[in-house]
């Protein structure tokens, strides 16, 4: 009979009973937590286990310790009463549960330790390199030991042998001495003091390094216990300063709460946009603390996915999410929003100019229905098409040039300058629409000599507005599909259809039939066609001039990339992400060989990125195991690189 209480996050407690006679509880958890709770004695097994743990850690395996304790029925019953009470208390339940757990989790006997290989997903190092090239700073927050975490960082290319590492650890000698003395207040003081000193000195050193040798990368590594003190309001500023200077930050042994705290620190302290990605239940608070939370759905269940804003299936899909879809989304949003303001501004300002000539009486220039349907029918669909389909460069080019992402980071397309330019052209166009149409319609049209009234002039102006605004959208598109053509032509056709119908009917609902028959008379004059050609061309003239000059003299990055690849054949397929679930094991292995990772990791730890474990353990046992093909190839490629350090090529 087994039952389980998850009382504390780091230790799981299991109770087991054999036929109600022997009662014992087992606990598993991280080594430091379990070691605190062991009974005295058994020094050999403790020492051997510690050695093993270190070995496992440096091999990059994730370790756990197991311990047990015998209980008598009375002990259990008395403890259970307190436990039930604590569990059903209404206030401070967590605190009371912690206290109750402390009562039973002591004097444990160590059984041993376990080590698990936790491979990095495929494509993770390449993904992280690409994102770093895109200007995104990457931090690792993990609950593993420091050695494991450093191994991970090496495998991900966040840290390499050239990187200057700033390490703040709670396993230093001074701290160990304080722990041996046993006074918790003293321990806390010592740790806090040491963290404060380290932060200050590291910060200075980092600043010096940055000014003297800017190309040398800096990495900051801190463990959870020190982090607890570093997040203190007094030390937080230095912590943030140092973290932001360093190129990568690794926090190990962090609890889920600390993960969330670190994320909030950057979010609120540095006011940067933060993105958290995780795949387990312990990442939920971090995912929720960031601006954008991404959950990886997978082996560890769906808690991370359920708490996240976006869910992806593998870590490497993050490049697609950010560099392709995120970037396109930013570009499209900017275009849609600025275009929307522009089209309404130009339309409304035209009426504004009219008021100067109505004695400021507030007479509307356009008929009511024109105004109501402007945003609904005549100009709505094309901008939706742009928002859905506009691409500045294709998906593969977005990933090839991750630096294009910087445009989003620097907010290049939504600055005040951009909006001011749109506003200026809206202003200019409204002047053209109003004054040119009014001036052109002055004295009689056509050989009949009859004069046009206000509603005739306004219908003419409105036709010009609709045509211009739709054509302007086409001018600002980077990629025009046939849906764009349909929607633009369709909107203009919808306007003509509407005005034909509206001019032809007279209902009892119209209090004033202003526009009756207007369009038919207009279209029977040469004036209409001449004005329809003239006014949109003049209105778009300014924009065309500006776009040509801007592209030639001050091109955006994406425009240069477009020009570089303008003769590439169109890629209509193969944007699908590679999937291996349908391959047999043989096929999977040959695929793996073909997808051999080419990271230039100079670290000798082959922990997370190659299946070399069998060889490791086998050699420990003295068993000869045939090398796997990819392992051989990998070792061979590594040997070459040790002699000639290469620069990573980035286009």
């Amino acid at each position: 009979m087994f039952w389980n209480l998850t009382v504390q996050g780091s230790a799981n407690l299991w109770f087991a009973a054999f036929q109600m006679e022997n009662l014992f509880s087992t606990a598993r958890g991280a080594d430091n937590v379990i070691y605190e709770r062991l009974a005295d004695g058994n020094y050999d097994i403790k020492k051997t286990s510690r050695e093993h743990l270190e070995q496992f850690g440096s091999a990059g395996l994730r370790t756990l310790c197991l311990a047990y304790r015998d209980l008598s029925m009375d002990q259990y019953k008395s403890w259970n009463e307190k436990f039930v009470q604590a569990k059903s208390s209404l206030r401070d339940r967590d605190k009371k549960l912690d206290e109750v757990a402390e009562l039973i989790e002591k004097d444990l006997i160590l059984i041993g330790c376990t080590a698990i290989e936790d491979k990095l997903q495929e494509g993770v190092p390449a993904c992280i390199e690409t994102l770093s090239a895109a200007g995104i700073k990457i931090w690792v927050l993990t609950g593993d030991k420091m050695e494991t975490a450093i191994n991970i960082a090496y495998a991900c290319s966040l840290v390499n042998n050239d990187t200057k590492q700033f390490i703040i650890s709670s396993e230093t000698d001074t701290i160990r001495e304080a722990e041996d003395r046993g006074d918790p207040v003293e321990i806390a003081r010592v740790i806090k003091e040491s963290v404060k000193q380290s932060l200050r000195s590291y910060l200075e050193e980092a600043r010096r390094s940055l000014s003297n040798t800017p190309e040398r990368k800096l990495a900051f590594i801190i463990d959870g216990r020190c982090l607890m003190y570093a997040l203190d309001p007094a030390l937080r500023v230095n912590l943030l300063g140092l973290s932001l200077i360093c190129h990568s930050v690794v926090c190990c042994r962090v609890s889920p709460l600390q993960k969330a705290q670190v994320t909030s620190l950057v979010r609120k302290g540095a006011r940067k946009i933060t993105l958290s990605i995780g795949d387990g239940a312990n990442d939920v608070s971090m995912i929720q603390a960031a601006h954008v939370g991404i959950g990886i759905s997978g082996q560890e269940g769906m808690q991370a996915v359920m708490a996240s804003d976006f869910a992806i299936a593998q870590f490497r899909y993050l490049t697609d999410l950010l560099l392709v879809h995120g970037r396109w989304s930013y570009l499209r949003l900017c275009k849609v929003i600025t275009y929307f303001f522009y089209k309404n501004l130009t339309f409304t300002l035209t009426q504004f100019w009219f008021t100067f000539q109505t004695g400021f009486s507030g007479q509307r220039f356009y008929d009511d229905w024109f105004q109501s349907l402007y945003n609904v029918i005549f100009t709505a669909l094309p901008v939706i098409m742009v928002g859905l389909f506009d691409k500045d460069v294709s998906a593969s080019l977005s990933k090839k040039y991750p630096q294009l992402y910087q445009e989003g980071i620097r907010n290049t397309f939504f600055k005040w300058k951009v909006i001011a330019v749109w506003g200026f052209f809206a202003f200019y166009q409204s002047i053209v629409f109003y004054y040119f149409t009014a001036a052109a319609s002055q004295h009689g049209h056509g050989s009949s000599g009859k004069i046009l009234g206000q509603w005739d002039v306004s219908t003419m102006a409105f036709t010009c507005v609709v045509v211009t605004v739709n054509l302007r959208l086409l001018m600002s598109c980077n990629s025009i599909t046939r849906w764009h053509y349909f929607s633009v032509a369709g909107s203009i056709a919808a306007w003509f259809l509407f005005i034909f119908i509206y001019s032809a009917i007279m209902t009892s609902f119209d209090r004033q039939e202003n526009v009756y028959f207007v369009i038919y008379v207009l279209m029977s004059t040469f004036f209409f066609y001449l004005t329809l050609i003239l006014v949109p061309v003049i209105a778009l003239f300014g924009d065309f001039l500006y776009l040509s000059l801007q592209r030639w003299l001050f091109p955006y990055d994406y425009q240069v990339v477009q020009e570089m690849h303008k003769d590439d054949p169109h890629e209509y397929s193969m944007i699908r992400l590679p999937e291996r679930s349908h391959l047999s094991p043989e096929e999977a292995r040959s695929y793996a060989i073909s997808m051999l990772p080419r990271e230039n990791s100079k670290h000798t730890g082959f922990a997370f990125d190659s299946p070399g474990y069998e060889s490791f353990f086998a050699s420990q046992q003295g068993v000869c195991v045939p090398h796997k093909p990819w392992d051989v190839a990998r070792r061979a490629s590594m040997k070459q690189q040790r002699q000639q350090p290469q620069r990573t090529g980035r286009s």
Partner: protein
Amino acid sequence: MNSGDAAGSSSGGSGDAGAPRRASRKPKYSKFTQQELPACKPILTPKWVISVFLLVGVIFVPIGVASLLASNKVVEIVDRYDDACVPSNVTNKLAYIQNSTISKTCRRTLKVPKDMKQPIFVYYQLNNFYQNHRRYVKSRNDQQLRDASKANETTLCDPEKTRDGMAIVPCGLIAWSTFNDTYTFQHNTNNLSIDKTDISWKSDRDHKFGSDVFPKNFQKGPLIGGKTLNESIPLSEQEDLIVWMRTAALPTFRKLYGRIYVDLKENDTITVTLDNNYNTYSFDGKKSLVLSTSTWLGGKNDFLGLAYLTVGGLCFFLAFAFTLLYLIKPRKLGDNNYLSWNRNSAGH
């Protein structure tokens, strides 16, 4: 728990030949949803810029020339008479114009500057008259104008709605203020007849103003705003009213008065006998008489021609300027060095 998810998801997959394949959860591929529609990716290269400017120039200049020629062919005589037609001994012009007992006939002579071919259009032009004022524009009731049975519909016609309890037909300020100066012409001592039919839009006559609606109770109040209407003529034949009620867009406007079907020669004299009835003196308005010919483009309006010519010329100039720009400041298309991360000497 579930070892072998392959078995789990392809539970009925025993019929599959070959290796068991996991049922893919990918949505069905379609070009629309995967954003892979074939697209044209226009780039504004120098070639395009210069060709567009040249094309616009080439199209616009001939059109501009044709429009300007048409406008120059139009011969126009404009004669302002509102100040000249008040006798010089009158100091209070407002009182003069409002006095209905004085005769306001005035005689003007016009000289024809160039040959004018028939039909010659007679317009009256008003300045500083805001027919586009909001309260003026809304002051009419179209249902009443159209339908005899709706004669009592006078909503929106304030303040000219009812007189002595009865509805005014046609109600509203626009109808009340109809222009009422009249003109007769003599050419070299021959009387010229003016054709006052078909001066309004046909659609207005047929559909907006009813043929069975007669003016009633009109201009019976203390303030007379303009023309009085003959109560036996239906509205659809009251062309002056119809022309006036098509409100103008700008404060300076012309309205068609009639047509003359006689050719006029250069240096001919036209004598106009006009009744200076309409009161523009209370608001500094101006009245003018206009005689004009018309071409395929309409009356005298240089604007279209000039605009086309200007834009065409500007486009040619810009095509030339851009050619210079591309020669002076050349930039190889797709030059790597223009990427901002290559331009910055210190990468980051």
